[in-house]
């Protein structure tokens, strides 16, 4: 055995992971007609029991579907989402729940997938506001916009409070290509129809006036 002096230069803790904080990481995907959201909730090992008390309300040592749904609902009540100042109503799409043991060890992440329908929005600049007030006593937050999957949506700015509990996403909604086509095609067709009608009227008018001219006194009919 080779004995070597091995000294940690700084105090080393046993924890290799977050201890006394409750990490809440939100990712927001803006689409033209809806907002999709994921929230990962990861309590550190030192606060896991505290969080579990809120989830495992019957103290059975496991999390039932009803308990998971109830906790998800409580998180959703603490989350505010609005577009251009109009509140949105996120609903739960699905949830992924770790084992109680994993949460207890500080490893378990609960994942909520939420979705909210957007009101009809016109092309142009818009903003989405997100606020997470769940467990601010122990929470640390991440909040980010995902790169939009549609070319119709372009994010122009993100602003947050210092703790990332609040996020404002500025974005531009471009006119839908199909809508653009119909927007241009319809007036175009109408224009063509009107031009065609005017042309016909003009021809009729010319023919009419010829006849009239023919009827001009002194002119011989051809």
């Amino acid at each position, binding site marked *: *055995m*080779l*004995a*070597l*002096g*091995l*000294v*940690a*230069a*700084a*105090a*080393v*803790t*046993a924890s*290799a*992971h*977050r201890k006394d*904080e409750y*990490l809440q*990481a939100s*990712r927001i995907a803006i689409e033209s007609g809806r907002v999709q959201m994921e929230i*990962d909730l990861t309590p550190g090992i030192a606060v896991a029991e505290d969080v579990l008390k809120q989830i495992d309300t019957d103290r059975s040592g496991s999390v039932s579907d009803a308990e998971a749904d109830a906790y998800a609902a409580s998180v959703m009540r603490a989350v505010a989402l609005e577009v251009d100042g109009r509140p949105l109503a996120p609903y739960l799409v699905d949830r992924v729940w770790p*084992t109680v*043991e*994993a949460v207890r*060890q*500080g*490893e378990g*992440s609960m994942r909520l997938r939420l979705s909210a329908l957007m009101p009809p929005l016109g092309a142009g600049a818009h903003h989405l506001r997100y606020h997470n007030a769940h467990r601010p006593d122990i929470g*640390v*937050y*991440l909040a*980010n*916009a*995902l*790169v939009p999957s549609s070319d119709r949506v372009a*994010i122009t700015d*993100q*602003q*947050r*409070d*210092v*703790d*990332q509990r609040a996020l404002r996403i500025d974005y531009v909604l471009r006119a839908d290509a199909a809508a653009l086509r119909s927007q241009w095609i319809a007036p175009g067709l109408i224009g063509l129809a009107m031009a065609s009608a005017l042309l016909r009227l003009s021809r009729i008018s010319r023919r009419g006036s010829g006849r009239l001219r023919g009827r001009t006194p002194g002119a011989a009919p051809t």
Partner: protein
Amino acid sequence: MFAMSRPSAVLLVSCALVSGSQAAPQRSPAPADATARIVAAARAVVATLDEAGKGTLQYAFDDAAQKKRWSNFPSPMFAREGLRLGDLTPPQRTAVMSLLQAALSADGYRKVLEIMKGDEVLKTGAGGRGPGGGGPPGGGPPGGGPPAGGPPGGGPPPGARGGRGGPGGGLMFGEDQYWLAFLGTPSTTTPWMLQFGGHHLAINLTIGGSQASMTPSLPAAQPAKFTIEGREIRPLGKENDKGFALINALDETQRSQAILSYRVADLVLGPTQDGRTIQPEGLRASALTPAQQSMLLDLVREWAGIMNDAYAEPRMAEIRAGLPQTYFAWSGPTVNGGAAYFRIQGPTLVIEYAPQGSVDHIHTIYRDPTNDYGATFAK
């Protein structure tokens, strides 16, 4: 004082050799040659194993669960699968380390050794389960013979393949607690993946002929600074120092764009975040001077250059080509010594450097949103 096991001594000697070799950089071999050497080293590992060991090492290339089975967490908090170093005989372990040396650059190999060494320090400082991590949950060594890293203890948990720790036990730290797995059969032509990792380390190297991708990977460190025989070791020291050098090379206008107005407590695109791309923020690299761009690329190389130089050079060329669309963002103090987060994000690149509340505990992530797990060539 720390009584080092024989494999640890081998690692340290290797580490010293690697450090020495850095003084005389050699011309990068062709990627195809590098692949041939890595495949030979991988086959040498396989040759040391019995059938059970081979079964423990080998996974199907399309095993999506195993592909994503990596984490910053220690075991058994996170259950890894594959060959556990602590279960190997000395020749087996030497073969594994030779494979890593072939697959990685000299600096990348040095980094991996130092991250593992840091975990050994953590074990002694944290009151871990002692040498061998309390014994291999997977039973005896895959190739027969005595385990190199501590006494065996206990059989495998129900349903576990070799080397898997069951939940609920004490955390296991140290150089024995790292796992190797192959997804697909090592080949010079057909895609396969070398997966190596443990606490604070995940190397996912997908090789397809002369192409390779080492994303996603997670080099991390705790402690971030320690000494061995009077020599200071900082596994991610260059990442830290080059990051601070870059932020301090910016003028006030550039800084105002690069520095985020909010705290970033953790990795945004860490483990379990495959396939997601966040909206980039910060200072666009096109607003950097040529000298600052060189500093940024030099910083990126700390991650992109972990894999064999033959693969790293084309990867760096790709990142360089995307530089005009690459962003540098910073959160935290700008004086070196503070705990600051930074992110570099480009068309084919995401790097995050995230102190976990202190400068002594660092997580980082390295991704290619277009080619994680070699998606473009590993079909």
